[in-house]
């Protein structure tokens, strides 16, 4: 175990996989010489050279398309889109191609590729640079979607993503890059897809979250325990596809109460789907309706005083938990 940041854990995962497998290649805007906009690819060009670590033009749809072709040709590309917002320029290659090629060609092709993208709001980057688009990816069969909350998961999930024979959308939260945690040193350490983590066991209420929202949920849970004696179980989804519904459904069945937290917009967001799964599976055991805490349905305003109202915060999660605790049946 070593303590390191989420950023360094991702960097280490890339490095280890590049060392292990010569078919792994990395490209994206400014990932090589500039070492990445968020420095996740620091040192890779120096270690692995220009043929494997490549800068690209600002052509997002083609960044993904070239990775698809290279994967069809037997490589394992790890493409970076500088942020998830620019994935909107690549939806054609992601949704129309990456997610469908295997299936529409009757299983004759496999696409072992990863598309990494930092995302999420909270840094006053305004409407075009603050989006949380995880629901778009989860709402597209044919691709895997991972979104780590901790440095250990960042490393373990990215390694799994690179080794996975399926195309993977790998989301990273910009505000987690500097977060620190213990990370296993073993180069064979991986974190399996489709297995949610229980960040904290509890008995009164289940909080289902992912990525930065899981981190905030944990903070809310700790405060609630201390301040109000409410015992929250915090489930971190880790991957949105495959989705480990069993874990959070079992937890909600046990606690009888649940709060679903998502950073993305509320309307038609993934949180409704999660809430419904709990509702459907725990209909008889739920003691209050599932509560959703979600991003506001607005284009993100720049001003920090407005922005903070638009993204779930520790306090808004705590309010929802208190709410679901007092809702009587």
């Amino acid at each position: 175990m070593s303590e390191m940041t989420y950023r360094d854990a991702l960097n280490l995962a890339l490095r280890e996989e590049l060392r292990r497998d010569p078919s792994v290649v990395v490209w994206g805007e400014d990932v090589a010489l500039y070492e990445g906009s968020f420095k996740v690819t620091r040192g890779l060009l120096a270690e692995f050279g220009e043929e494997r670590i490549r800068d690209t033009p600002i052509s997002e749809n083609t960044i993904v398309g070239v990775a698809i072709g290279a994967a069809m040709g037997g490589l394992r590309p790890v493409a970076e889109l500088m942020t998830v917002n620019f994935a909107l320029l690549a939806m054609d290659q992601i949704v129309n191609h990456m997610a469908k090629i295997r299936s529409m060609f009757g299983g004759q092709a496999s696409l072992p590729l990863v598309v990494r993208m930092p995302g999420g709001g909270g840094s006053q980057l305004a409407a075009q640079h603050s989006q949380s688009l995880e629901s778009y990816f989860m709402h597209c069969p044919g691709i895997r979607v991972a979104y780590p909350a901790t440095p250990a998961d960042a490393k373990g999930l990215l390694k799994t993503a690179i080794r996975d024979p399926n195309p993977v959308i790998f989301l990273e939260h910009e505000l987690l890059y500097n977060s620190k945690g213990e990370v296993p040193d073993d180069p064979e350490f991986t974190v399996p897809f489709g297995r949610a983590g229980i960040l904290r066991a509890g008995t009164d209420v289940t909080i289902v979250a992912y990525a930065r929202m899981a981190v905030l949920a944990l903070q809310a849970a700790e405060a609630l325990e201390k301040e109000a004696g409410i015992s929250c179980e915090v489930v971190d989804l880790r991957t949105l596809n495959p989705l480990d519904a069993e874990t959070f459904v079992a937890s909600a069945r046990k606690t009888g109460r649940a709060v679903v937290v998502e950073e993305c917009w509320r309307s038609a967001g993934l949180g409704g789907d999660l809430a419904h799964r709990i509702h459907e599976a725990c209909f008889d055991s739920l003691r209050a309706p599932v509560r959703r805490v979600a991003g506001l349905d607005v284009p993100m305003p720049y001003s920090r005083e407005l922005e903070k109202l638009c993204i779930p915060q520790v306090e808004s999660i705590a309010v929802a938990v208190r709410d679901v605790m007092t809702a009587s049946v």
Partner: protein
Amino acid sequence: MEARLRAVLPDHDLVRLYEQMVLSREFEESCAEQYAKGHITGFLHLYSGQEAVAAGATAALHKDDYILSAYREHAQALVRGAEPKRVMSELFGKATGMCKGKGGSMHLFSAELNFMGGYAIVGGQLPIACGLAFSSRYRQEDRITACFFGDGAVNQGTFHESLNWARLWELPVLFICENNFYGIGTEVHRSSALPTVHKRTCGYDIPSEKVDGMDVLAVFKAVKYAAEKVRESGRPYFIEALTYRFRGHSMADPAKYRSAAEHEVWKARDPIPNYARRLLAEGIATEAQLAAIRDRCVALVAEAVSFAEASPWPAADEVWEDIYV
């Protein structure tokens, strides 16, 4: 202008080009019938008229070169070696289809034949072709990627991004634009500021040329030259083949936007009878031999239809298969 055929290829290969064009035409015309009968559903885009491009270009490539195309790709799969019955069965949506009935007319694919797919999003295959070419170069394979697309695709962002990328990364891609002068009902000069398609490569420093897409030998020669250039230099090359589709865009299109006169001019340039005349004139084949070829193709296609008809539907649980590995 016409070179003597024998100067280009041995007799056997010359005759084979004829056979491939005839097979393509027969296959397409049979598809039209099967569509009318309701055996083929969905969108159906036929290639009749453009056969010289697929046949000539494919003959000029190596067997392990990758080929990608759009949704008008039956002939491209056939001349690459796909079995007519497995293509027809795919069009019927049957379990024995080359993609198990999951792709249909627009999405033929054969890993075995390095036929890397028909794509139905205009321009979608271009970046993928670049990626395949990168994988070949990365592994130092002596393989190039040929990517077919239509005149309508040249105004998509992906066209621009892919051409720039291919030249910048020095990728062995041969871009082949089949300019049949229409994207559905829109004529090239109404969609492209510079309607001379191959000249659009000037912005990417990619060499390009145009070729008569109704002349199978001309296509063969141009693609042969271009493919060698790509293979030697490791850089992209661009060919515009001028051609024409004799039918509407798809079965739903009566093609009223084209004049009868225009259609007649192109009909007179039908690549199949014109090539037959040259084979006869140069004594490469006899009338009887050509008739035998036609009969063989007709039989092959009839057999393909019977095979498709007799094949089972995919089992219901196939719905969950082939999505994830």
